[in-house]
C-alpha cells in the first residue's frame, strides 16, 4: 500500500510539473502582451519600463526558471499584472470559495434528485415513468446553462422579484445560480444511475442474495446500491473537483465574484501569473480528485483491493 501511494504521488508531481511547463510556454506563444490597448498609447520607453518592472524583458527560459524557483521555494504564485497589488493567491482565495459554494450547492441539489430519478426509472423500466424521467434527464442535459440562468433570472428575480437579480451576499443570492448549475447534474446522474442500477439489479448475485433471505431494504442498500455507485463515483469526484473552477457564464449573468471570469479575462488580458496560477490550481484539484477516486474505489470494492495487493 505504501509503495502504491508513493508511486502515485510521484506520478502526480510529474504531471503537475508538465502542466506548468506546457502552459508557461504556450502562454508566451500568444501574440500580445499585458499592456493590451495601452500599447497604442504608451511611448516605447514607458512600455520598456513596464516590461522591465514585471521581468518580461528577460528571455522566456530565464522567466520560466525564475517562476519555478519562486513557486517551489517560496510557494509564491506571483502578483497579477492586471490587478496590481493583488497576489494570485489572494485572488484565488477570494474567488474559489464563492465559485465552489455555487458548485457545491448545485451538486447537493442536483445529485440526489438525479440519483433518485435514475433509481425510479430503473424500477419502472419500460413504463411511462421511465420514459418520462429519461426525457426529463435529456432536457436537463441539453438546455444550455446560460439559457436556464437567464430564464430563471427573468421569471424569479425580475418578474416575480423573489430573488435578487445579481450580486452576492447572503444565502438568497446563491439560490438561482446553484439551481442553474445543478440542473445539468440531475440529467447526467439520472441516466448513469438508471443504467448502473439496472445492470446490477439483473446480476446473479442479487438473485442469490434475495433467495438467501436478505430483506428488501438490506438488498437495496447493502448490495445493489454499493455496486451501482461505482461508476457514479467515477463521475462525481472529478465533478466535485471542477466546481472549484467556477462557471464563467453563470458568474457573468449573476455577477458573482467567483474565479470563473478570471479564466477568460486573464487570457485575453495576457495576465501571465494569473493564467499559470489558475492552471496549476485546476490541475492540482483534478489530479487530486482522480487520486481520491482510486482510493474510494478501493474502499468500496474489495475486489480491487485484493488484486492490487498481489
Amino acid at each position: 500500500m505504501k509503495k502504491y501511494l508513493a508511486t502515485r504521488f510521484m506520478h502526480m508531481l510529474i504531471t503537475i510539473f508538465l502542466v506548468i511547463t506546457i502552459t508557461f510556454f504556450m502562454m508566451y506563444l500568444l501574440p500580445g502582451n499585458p499592456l493590451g490597448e495601452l500599447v497604442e498609447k504608451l511611448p516605447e520607453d514607458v512600455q520598456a519600463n513596464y516590461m522591465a518592472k514585471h521581468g518580461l524583458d528577460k528571455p522566456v527560459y530565464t522567466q520560466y526558471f525564475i517562476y519555478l524557483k519562486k513557486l517551489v521555494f517560496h510557494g509564491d504564485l506571483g502578483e497579477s499584472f492586471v490587478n496590481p497589488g493583488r497576489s494570485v493567491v489572494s485572488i484565488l482565495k477570494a474567488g474559489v470559495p464563492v465559485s465552489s459554494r455555487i458548485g457545491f450547492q448545485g451538486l447537493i441539489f442536483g445529485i440526489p434528485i438525479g440519483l433518485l430519478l435514475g433509481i425510479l426509472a430503473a424500477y419502472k423500466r419500460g413504463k411511462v415513468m421511465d420514459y418520462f424521467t429519461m426525457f426529463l434527464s435529456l432536457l436537463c442535459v441539453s438546455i444550455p446553462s446560460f439559457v436556464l440562468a437567464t430564464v430563471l433570472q427573468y421569471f424569479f428575480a425580475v418578474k416575480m422579484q423573489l430573488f435578487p437579480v445579481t450580486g452576492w451576499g447572503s444565502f438568497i443570492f446563491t439560490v438561482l445560480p446553484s439551481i442553474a448549475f445543478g440542473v445539468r447534474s440531475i440529467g447526467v446522474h439520472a441516466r448513469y444511475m438508471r443504467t448502473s442500477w439496472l445492470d446490477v439489479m439483473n446480476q446473479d448475485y442479487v438473485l442469490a442474495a434475495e433467495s438467501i433471505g436478505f430483506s428488501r431494504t438490506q438488498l437495496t442498500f447493502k448490495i445493489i446500491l454499493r455496486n451501482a455507485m461505482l461508476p457514479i463515483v467515477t463521475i462525481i469526484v472529478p465533478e466535485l473537483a471542477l466546481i472549484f473552477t467556477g462557471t464563467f457564464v453563470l458568474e457573468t449573468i449573476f455577477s458573482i465574484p467567483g474565479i470563473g471570469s478570471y479564466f477568460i479575462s486573464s487570457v485575453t488580458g495576457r495576465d501571465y501569473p494569473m493564467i499559470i496560477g489558475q492552471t496549476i490550481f485546476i490541475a492540482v484539484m483534478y489530479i487530486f480528485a482522480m487520486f481520491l477516486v482510486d482510493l474510494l474505489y478501493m474502499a468500496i470494492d474489495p475486489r480491487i483491493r485484493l488484486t492490487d495487493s498481489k
Partner: protein
Amino acid sequence: MKKITTIMCVLMALLMLLSACGQEAANNDAVPAVTANSGAVMPEGDDADNEVEATQVSEEEIDAQQFINYILYYDPSVIDGTMTNKSMDAMIICNVNVPLTEIAQGTNGLKIVGGGAESWEVSDDGLVYTFKLRDFNWEDGVKVTAEQYAYSIRRILDPANASPVSYMLFDIKNAAACVKGEITPDEVGIKALDENTLEITLEKVTPYFVQLTYQPYFTPTREDLVNEWGSQFGTSVETTMSCGPFKLSEWVHDSKMTLVKNDAYWNAEEVKLGQINLKLIRDMQAMMSELMNHTIDRASVSVPEWRQKLIATNEFSYGDYILSGTYSLFMNTKYVDDNGNNILGNAKVRRAIAACIDKEEAAMMLKTDMAIPATGYVPSELQMDGINFRNESGYNVMEAFAESVSDPKALLIEGLTELGLDPDPSLYSIEYLVGSTAASSKTEAEYFYEVIKNNLGLNLEVVQVESGVARQRRADGEFGMTYVTSYADYNDPSTYLNGWATYLEKHNTNTGYDNVEYDKLIDAANASTDTAERLELFSAAEKLLVETDCIIIPIYHPMSSMMNGIYIKGFINQNYAATQFKTVYTVGRPETN
C-alpha cells in the same frame, strides 16, 4: 418504493421552503410621468457669462434618506490616480480624492471650476501655470498641500513605476525626458512654491492644458502613506486615504463597493448623498433588468429595444448625447493582395471606396439610433480652445464626397487604369481585419462586404481574430482594411490628428501614410497659439486624411443614452471627466425594501 416516494416528497418540500424565503416584491408605485430631458451637452471653456447653475431645491423636497445604487462595470484595479487609466478607477478616485479642477454645470453648458485649486493664472508667455490651493485636509486631519500634488506628477513620471498614464503628462516640461530616464523626477516642470501654491511649467504653449487638470492624475498623493502601504496602496479600504466628498467604506473585490459621505470634506454641506452603493454587474441583460426594477438607479443604455422599453414605463429621464469618438475604416496604402497587386496604393481607388459608403445608412445599420453619421475624423462634439471644431471649420466629409464624386465605380476604374492593372474590380480582393470574435462584429463586416461588392464590385476578405492579435497586426501593418473606434483623450483636435504624422516611429494603425505636407500642417498647428490659425491648419490636415489622401473613412460618432429613474437629480451628462456624485440627490424615490 414507498421510501423513495417519501424522500422525493421531502426534497420537494425543502425546495418550496427555500423559495419562500425570498424577498418581498418591491413596491413600485406608479410615479407621475415627467417629460424626459434630452439634448447633447457640450463642454465649453472658461466663459465669464457661464455662471454655475445654482441648485434650487428646498429642504422639504429631497428624500430623507439620500443614497444611490450605481453600476461598477468591472472591479477597479487600484484607487490611485497615478497608476491607473481605467474609467471605473477614475470614477472612484475623483470622488474620494480632489483633482485641481472640476467640471460643473453652467447656465450655458459645462464649465471648469476650481476643485483642489481655488484659482489659477497663466503667465504671459503661456508656459507657466500657477494654482492657488484652498485650505482643506485629508480625513485623518493632515493638510492637503501643493507638494502632494507635485508628488503625484513625479510619481507618474518616474520610470521605475511604469505608470500607464505617463503619456498624458508629456506637455509638462521635461516629462518625456524623465520617462526615458534622462533626467530625474525632481527636474520635471512642477514645483510647490509653498503649502498652497503649485507652479507647473510646460514644454510649449498648450491651449488645452487646463482640460487635463480635472483628471485623476492631478489629484494629491500622500508620500508617507505610499511608503507605509507599499504595493498595497489603493487596493483596499484600509489602504486608501481620502480628502474628497466621499470615502471608501467597503470593497468586496469583484462584487461591490460602498462609498459614504466624508464629513471632513471642505464643501461637505453641499454634498447631499449619504451613501453610494456600487454593484458590479457584468451582464447587459442583468444590468437592464436591475435598472428596470430600480435596484440600480442609472445606467448607459445602448440596446435600442431596452431603450424603448424603459422609456415606455415613464419612470425614467434620459439624456442622449453624442460621444467624442469616431468609428472609422482605415486603409493600408502598402497592402499587397495574393496576386501581388497594391491597389490601395492609389489615391483614386481609396477615394472610390470612401465615396461608395453611405454614412447615414451605415450608422443606421450598425447602431440603429445610437450613432450619428460622421462629419469628419475629428468627432462632432470635440472642442478646440472653447469653440466647436466641426462647426467652426465648416468642413463636412460627406458633403465633400457627394460634391466631388458622382460615380465611385468610374473613379475606381480610373485608379486601376492608372496603376496599369486590369480595370475589372472583381479580380481584386482586400483583406478586412476584424479585431473581435463576437458575432456582431461579423455582421458588421458583412455589411461593408455587401456595400463594397454591390457598389464597386470589389471583394473584401473578412478575417476575424482576437482583439489582442488584431492590435499587433494593425501596428505591424498586416491588414488591407480594418476598423477602429477611437475616443478623444482630451478636448482638442490634436488628440486625433497628431498620431498620423509620418515621422512618428510607431503608429497604432500602420497605414503606411507618408505625406510631408501633412506633417508640416500638424507641426504648424501645434506650435501656433492663434485659434483661427490652428483651426485652418487642423482643418486642412483633416481634409488630407479623409478626402485628398483618403486614408481614413469616418463612419459614425457613437451616442450614449444615460437613463436614470426620474427621482434622481443632479448628474452632469459629459464624457470628459469622471462621473461626479457630489451634485447628486434624490427626490421622491419609490419605496423599496
